[in-house]
């Protein structure tokens, strides 16, 4: 699992690559928590290179969404591969997340 970041002015873009399984979810959650502790409140997570997502990974995103909301922050997900989107869909969580096809539209949505 690789986690890369890029700051787009006031927004932190997070790129996840690999398998977000039970083990990696714990690591990614810790990394995201550190970002929040450092003051990041607006995030876009790019999932284009994510191979799969299980409920462990979903809970990381749910937890992140909850934490950001408590700080009046925003979270968007973008470029979700079909297999990953399928897990979000069958979990009936698509409406909970701000989901975009492209990074640009995700950034605009968060700034809006």
């Amino acid at each position, binding site marked *: 699992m690789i986690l890369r970041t890029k700051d787009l002015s006031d927004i932190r873009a997070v790129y996840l690559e690999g398998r977000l399984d039970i083990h990696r979810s714990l690591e990614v959650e810790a990394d995201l928590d550190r970002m929040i502790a450092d003051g990041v409140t607006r995030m876009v997570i790019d999932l284009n290179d994510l191979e799969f997502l*299980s409920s462990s990974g979903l809970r990381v995103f749910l937890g992140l969404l909850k934490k950001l909301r408590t700080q009046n922050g925003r979270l968007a997900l973008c470029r979700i591969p079909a297999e990953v989107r399928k897990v979000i869909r069958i979990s009936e969580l698509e409406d909970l997340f701000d989901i975009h096809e492209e990074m640009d539209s995700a950034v605009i949505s968060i700034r809006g």
Partner: protein
Amino acid sequence: MSVERSEILVTGETKNVALIFAEADKLLEGKPVSRAWRNDVLVCIDEAFSNIIQHGYLYAPEGKIRVTMTLYRDYFRIIFQDTAAAYKEPRKKPAPGRAVLNRKTPGLGWHIMRQLMDKVAYQRIGESNCLVLTKNIEAEDRHDSEDKRPE
């Protein structure tokens, strides 16, 4: 496709999910199943393993889990056996959306397994748990033509 089997015994440490993935990858390597089908299998391996560690062994790392995977011509079967406490298999589908966000409805992992597998069967046998996951290999799973990611 002849019957092929793999068996692995791991301890209940989260990092060991990678060992089970590696066994599944090895068993399915070169087999004519789609990436989407493989992905469903791997997600359910993660769900089953997570449930045993989190709700069975309560993160006790010494707990043992035996995973047997068998590839038949028309289906794939994964059997998880452990000696953790009996699971509480949720029968109800978790409430979607906000309730999940508030963690009021456990059972998301079970729900995902039931959606992605053709059969999910749990049994308490003596002091052991036995979870059997079965996924059929349908005609449309046998090729990769629909495996496209968004550009």
